[in-house]
């Protein structure tokens, strides 16, 4: 089932208030990040409830990637609180943030970032293997996700033989295979043509909904943003509601 439009402000408010009652998988408060004396994120607030998708838009250099990295725990923050999947990650060491990321977050990037040495199937099963699952079971689940995303036939291929759209679908399978409560995607369609971009964006949002994950997508593409429940614009270090 495809989601075809963005939510109204009333709907967005409803989902936000719903998030207050049930703990949201992503809850950020007063987040500040500075780089070389320049405030990239300034007292930023964000809540993304379970099963909802949020698009972050903004010009290049506005801090979208920095925000996603802060949510994923890839980088530390200067001030503020970042709670992801029930864990306050700002106080954690880099190693503990990495462990948390492995368990609770699925990540997608503009160029897929598959491990070139591993086959498609191995790339997808990697998070499960690292979480302790036996190889056969991990492969079975990976194959299942590849089938859901219609790339099962590529299971034995290596990344360098795939097209851009195929790479992104495999990357999506890898991000979802361990059914994380949070899915973060940084320009996931940036390297794709319009058809593939729409396909991948819908798969991303729908898969998140199916697994109940909170999805955050940084994008320049209005079409991709339109697939999400809520669109926020990052400007001067803080987020504001926007419409296409």
């Amino acid at each position: 089932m495809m989601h075809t439009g963005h939510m109204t402000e009333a709907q967005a408010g409803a989902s936000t208030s719903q998030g207050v009652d049930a703990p949201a998988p992503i809850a950020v408060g007063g987040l500040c990040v500075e780089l070389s004396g320049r405030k990239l994120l300034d007292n930023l607030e964000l809540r993304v409830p379970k099963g909802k998708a949020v698009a972050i838009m903004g010009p290049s250099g506005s801090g979208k990637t920095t925000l996603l990295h802060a949510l994923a725990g890839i980088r530390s923050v200067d001030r503020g609180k970042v709670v992801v999947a029930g864990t306050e990650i700002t106080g954690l060491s880099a190693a503990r943030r990495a462990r948390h990321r492995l368990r609770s977050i699925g990540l997608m990037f503009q160029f897929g970032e598959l491990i070139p040495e591993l086959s498609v199937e191995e790339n997808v099963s990697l998070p499960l293997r690292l979480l302790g699952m036996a190889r056969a079971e991990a492969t079975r689940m990976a194959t299942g996700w590849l089938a859901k995303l219609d790339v099962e036939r590529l299971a034995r291929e290596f990344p360098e033989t795939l097209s851009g759209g195929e790479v992104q679908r495999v990357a999506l399978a890898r991000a979802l295979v361990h059914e994380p409560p949070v899915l973060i995607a940084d320009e996931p369609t940036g390297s794709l043509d319009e058809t593939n971009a729409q396909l991948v964006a819908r798969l991303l949002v729908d898969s998140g909904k199916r697994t109940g994950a909170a999805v955050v997508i940084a994008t320049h593409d209005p079409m991709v943003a339109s697939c999400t429940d809520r669109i926020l614009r990052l400007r001067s270090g803080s987020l504001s509601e926007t419409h296409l």
Partner: protein
Amino acid sequence: MITNVLPVTVGLALRAGARFKAEHAWRRTALILAGSVAALLSVLTVSAVELFSAEDARESARTPYIADSKAEAKLYIAPRADVWNGAQFPVLWIEPAEGSGDVPIPPGMKTMPAPGEAVISPELHRLAAANSTIAARYPVSSAVLSSEGLKVPTELFAYVRPPVARSIANDQRSHGIRGFGAPLGVPGSLTIDAPNARPTLPMLLAGIALLAIPMLLLSLAAVSTVAPERDRRMQILSWMGWSRRRAVSLNAIEAMVVSTPGILLVVIGWYLLAPHLTRLPPIGRAANPGDLSLSPVSALLCAAFTLTFVALSAIATSARTKSDRPRPGGIQTAFSVMRAVPALLGTGTILLGLVVSGKTGGALVLAGVVTFLLGLPVVLPFGVRSLGRQIQRLPSVVMLFAGRTLERNAIRSARPMMGLVALAILLTTGAGFLAVVGTLDPPPVGDQRLVAARVSSLAYQPQDLVNLRGKLPGSVVAPYTITGSPEGPELRLGATCADLAVLQIECSPDKGLVGSAADGIARAVGFPPGILTIVLGKVANHSNGQLLALSGPRETFAQDVRAAAGATLVGPVVMTLDDQAQVESPLVPWLIMGFLVGAVLLLLAACILLVDGVLRAESERQLLAKLGVPNRKLMQIEALQLLSSYTFTAGIGLAVGTVLCIVVVLVGGDTAIPFAQLGRIWLAILLIGLLASCLGVIFRQLLSAKEAM
């Protein structure tokens, strides 16, 4: 909770190590080469230690226990020396104690030689067969010692038993002994060889400077090959939730996996080959079969050590990778004083070594050189960056591109040159060290009209003097003693002016010998001219057999005296002025070989770094080519980048090395600065750089042509 980390990491490492693209083949080649060379150095080092240990054990086996009393003595031994080709070698005079039924036999000897006979080492036997003067002292018919009795298979060594009716038992220079196998250098043992003091600290420092640092550089160069791809893999894994430690360990395992075949091949090959070798390569030191053998445990430890070394190199190069995605335009690292600390510390230590005298000063200079070499790669890129800033100001688009690349990618630009810089420093400093250790004091120049030899013997009898005189016609042989007096040391020579008249030298019955003849005799007995008074007269209490043999100019005098003494005296030692010449330190061949091996390692590292530099710059080249920059322009940019960074870094290396060479020479004492050698090294390094830069440009062209196909 994470249980699959190890198998997943190893599996991924195996995959990473087994990729088939051209650059991965290059990485594999570099890693296998570095691993194999490190393994070879490792097994050679362990084999050298095994060899020293075996030599020490054999030396200990032939070291006598001194008897506490005459009654306990089973054998008498008097360590004496002979000379061949300017080098002394030990000759042990042995005589079974009277009434002792259980005479200990030295190791390597089947039976005690008969009176007047010798048992000699195989090398001495070979010499005797080829040289009549040696054969006169050690007949070819002598029994030959087996390898258990020799410290080194090629050493010159002999046991000689006095003839019938001559005994060394009562000579004060002989020792009653109760057996063999005493530990070396402990009270109660008799030292029969030169003391076995190995200069541990200088050898360790030289080993670090000549082998460990070049090997480290080679290893770091190999593990850094195709590093951007490895760094990208680390980044993706880090984003996926791998901890940094785990991602780094993946790199370490991958480097180990790739280098393992080479390491195993070398270690197993050496393990099988070493027991049969009779020379330690590359130094060529003689060894008995089995001396160089590795035990299975040692072989395993060598392999484990080398793998650990490769892994640590991979970890060291992974540690500096940033986890954030690199921004376009390269990473600018700020210069801080902390980065210059190792180089400054090295400089300070060298200066301190110049102030402190003696061996400590020399060790400090060497330690300073090592520290400086380790610190140089950290500061050099900042110099390259400054150079880039200057070049890009010049009015040409070629200058702009070349300068900007040097500025923005200073570390990458300086890396390929690091091996050659280290080579420049190593060779120039090495020229200084070799000048110091290779400068030998010439023998003292004596009076051209007089040659003299000191002769001493055991169990001296007055008839010995008569016999020796009989064997040396045309010469003067006389006893002498040296005594102290308020006017200074005095040598009393038991000869008259009439005896000396045959030599046509100035002589006065009242004043004794003066002038050049006196100086010649003084030098012959180890005194500088002008200090020793030489008087003529009867020598009282002459029981220690100290004789002086004097002759007019005669080239074969030393040989003649040795032959005569060998035929007439017991335990003779003959010393001439030529024997006072300084002989080369046994460390010199090790040092020369160390410099050669170090230079080869650095050249290999330089090759790997250069090829990797070309591979890494390919994407930039393609970008410029896509923009329409003509091929000729591209070549100019590349040549300028390579040549300017090379000229700059090699210039620094040569300047630093030359200063270090001068420092070493100044510390080393009375040695001339080897300007000719330095000039040749400068020329060689500059030519190598020019050649490397040309090859670099050609390689890039070939690579681009291949990509375009």
